[in-house]
């Protein structure tokens, strides 16, 4: 079991409150996933040609902190003086004046000890083991504004409870995936993707789904096409929520094993594993509420 929440703001005046609205939704899903939690939030776009990265120091001992100051100096030496780094405990959000591919290559070469959890122009991701409320507090999510966000609470079934195994998983620039369910053909799919050059950091089945979608997108699929191929190639139970630069998409497996509910008002569109998370939102009582049909891709994008 896991919990998923997603929130897309329609009324710009509410964007400043995105994190404050998302946090209670995620806490409400604690019973579905008390072992880890994660958030992808879309906010503060960088200028054209620049890149925003989130990196995560996964190997810290208790009480130890990463030397972000040294990393900042190294970034400025490599990318110039306007490289910027914002610390969030064991995470850092980094802005660099270079294309994403160059930034990712630099990190993979120079700092393999850091886990690169997102890259793009808008996305930031935060995740950790522990109760959702503690994870939210650790990174100050409730104080963050933005256009849309996804959250995940994890109850691990297929692999270890680790920070690297927590959701969201990056699937490409400004794209990420959260998953409720379990894939039954993930080992086979992982091997076949590895032969195509996709790298994996964990034994996690959801990371395979993320890697699969990332591979399809690089092959030229749109997000919708990638998910359509996913229905064919991924075997198992899933509700996926996939965040993109402009919105998010929701897909349930064709048998409809895992729950999902959606709601919409003039102010927002929300999805969750259960309605009680959506009930925390203002105006939820009068929202249009429906259950996404199995095997059907639902997509919200900024117009």
């Amino acid at each position, binding site marked *: 079991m896991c919990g998923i929440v997603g929130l897309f703001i329609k009324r710009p005046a509410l964007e400043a409150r995105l994190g404050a609205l998302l946090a209670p939704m995620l806490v409400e899903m604690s019973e579905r996933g008390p072992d880890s939690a994660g958030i992808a939030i879309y906010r503060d776009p960088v200028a054209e040609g620049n890149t925003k990265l989130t990196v995560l120091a996964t190997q810290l001992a208790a009480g130890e902190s990463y030397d972000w100051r040294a990393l900042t100096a190294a970034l400025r030496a490599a990318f110039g003086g306007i490289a910027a780094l914002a610390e969030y405990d064991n995470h850092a959000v980094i802005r660099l004046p270079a294309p994403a591919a160059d930034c990712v290559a630099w990190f993979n070469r120079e700092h393999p000890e850091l886990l690169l959890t997102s890259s793009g122009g808008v996305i930031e991701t935060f995740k950790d083991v522990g109760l959702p409320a503690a994870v939210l507090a650790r990174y100050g999510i409730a104080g963050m504004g933005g256009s849309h966000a996804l959250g995940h609470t994890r109850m691990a079934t297929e692999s270890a409870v680790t920070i690297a195994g927590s959701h969201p998983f990056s699937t490409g620039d400004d794209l990420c995936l959260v998953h409720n369910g379990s894939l039954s053909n993930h080992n086979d799919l992982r091997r076949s993707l590895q032969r195509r050059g996709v790298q994996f950091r964990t034994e996690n089945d959801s990371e395979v789904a993320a890697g699969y979608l990332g591979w399809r997108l690089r092959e030229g699929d749109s997000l919708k096409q990638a998910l359509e191929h996913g229905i064919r190639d991924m075997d198992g139970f899933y509700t996926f929520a996939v965040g993109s630069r402009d919105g998010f998409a929701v897909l349930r497996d064709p048998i*409809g094993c895992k*729950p999902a*509910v959606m709601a919409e008002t003039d102010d927002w569109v929300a999805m969750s594993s*259960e*309605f*009680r*998370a*959506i*009930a*925390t939102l203002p105006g*939820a*009582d009068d929202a249009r*509420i*429906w*259950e996404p*049909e*199995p095997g059907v891709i639902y997509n919200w994008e900024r117009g």
Partner: protein
Amino acid sequence: MREFDLREQTVRDLNAQLHSHHGSDAGDQYRVSHPNGAHAVAAGIDAPLKVDIDGHVGYYCAGMNKHASVRISGTAGSGLAENIMSGTVHLRGNASQYAAASGHGGLVVIEGDASARCGISMKGVDIVVGGSVGHMAAFMAQAGNLVICGDAGHHLGDSIYEARLFVRGSVASLGADCVEKEMTDQHREMLRKLLERAGIDADPDEFRRYGSARNLYHFNIDHADAY
């Protein structure tokens, strides 16, 4: 009339109070506000109570209901009225998966749509859905009536035993051993009464009836060599 506000009180408080009534206690009325998607609201009642729930409920609302009349003004999560024994559960909105699953008796009314597996393994309950149902409705249904005023999804009545299925709209596909059957005057009259009890306005003449071909669960002497 007793009031429960689930912002102030817990589902456990509510259900303990509802469970304090036993079979013979009659007539008490309850109003429950702000369920906000909570699970197991008014589950396990065993008395002829009247319970009105104002809002949206989570999983297993009015599960195992016996004797009581439970009305919900909003939508319901998975397992509405699961294993209902008797009484009535009436939902104004849409229901999620396996509504009225394995119900033994009583009446479940869903004014909106029900999603997948509505009435799975139903054992005598009557279910009236004002809208449409998702896939695998009445899977392994054994007894009772499922009335669908809208459309039915794929594999309606798969592996059905003896329940009666009435559908006004289209059927995406029938499951194994489920076939269309003749709609007799007797069936129309039964359906008319059931719709009336449910308070759903629909013309019995517009429905088609589906049921078991009885090929799956009857021993066929021609297959004796297989054993």
